[in-house]
């Protein structure tokens, strides 16, 4: 089956720093989602990005489907950015398969 790996697994940033999170997937996909899981466990949709680049405030994402990876950029990080970031891709039968996650801690 498809493999989805994220890097780094853990990241600690000083508030105000920038970061790049990576998602590699083993098979071709027709869409990809990025989520932020906050400390209360809620999964918040960040981007639905099959290809190309999208931006939303301090966050942006780029998916290069032909090379099977996606990047999530966080600029000017804030403590509220802390949590776990997941990418997820669809598999054949209605399954949204999640990556391993990146745990981000932003310290003031």
């Amino acid at each position: 089956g498809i493999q989805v790996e994220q890097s780094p697994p853990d990241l600690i940033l000083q508030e105000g720093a920038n970061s790049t999170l990576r998602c590699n997937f083993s098979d071709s996909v027709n869409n990809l989602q990025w989520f932020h899981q906050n400390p209360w466990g809620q999964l918040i949709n960040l981007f639905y990005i099959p290809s190309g680049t999208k931006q939303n405030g301090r966050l942006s994402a780029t998916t290069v489907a032909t090379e099977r990876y996606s990047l999530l950029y966080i600029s000017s990080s804030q403590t509220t950015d802390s949590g776990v970031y997941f990418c997820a891709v669809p598999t054949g039968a209605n399954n949204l398969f999640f990556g391993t996650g990146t745990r981000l801690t932003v310290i003031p």
Partner: protein
Amino acid sequence: SQTIHQWPATLVQPVGSPLSLECTVEGTSNPNLYWYRQAAGRGLQLLFYSVGIGQISSEVPQNLSASRPQDRQFILSSKKLLLSDSGFYLCAWGGRGSEAFFGQGTRLTVV
């Protein structure tokens, strides 16, 4: 706009007791519905999905079952909980090939 409701938010149940978690979606028709479990703070595992009323597909053999009695209602159940059923359960909805949205989750502790 579409919204998804999941309850309860937290639940502590003794081993051997039954379980019923409910999820409802508003603002859409005939959605795909999903139950996921997160056991260790990262990594979501698909348990069940449904493409329509009464249609349930199981991804992982386990002590749980799911039902979809109405178009926008998805229920996760167990007749007798095990310690290993503890975890964070998330309901989600989405259209085929489109963006998925998650409920707020239920944190289940089996004692």
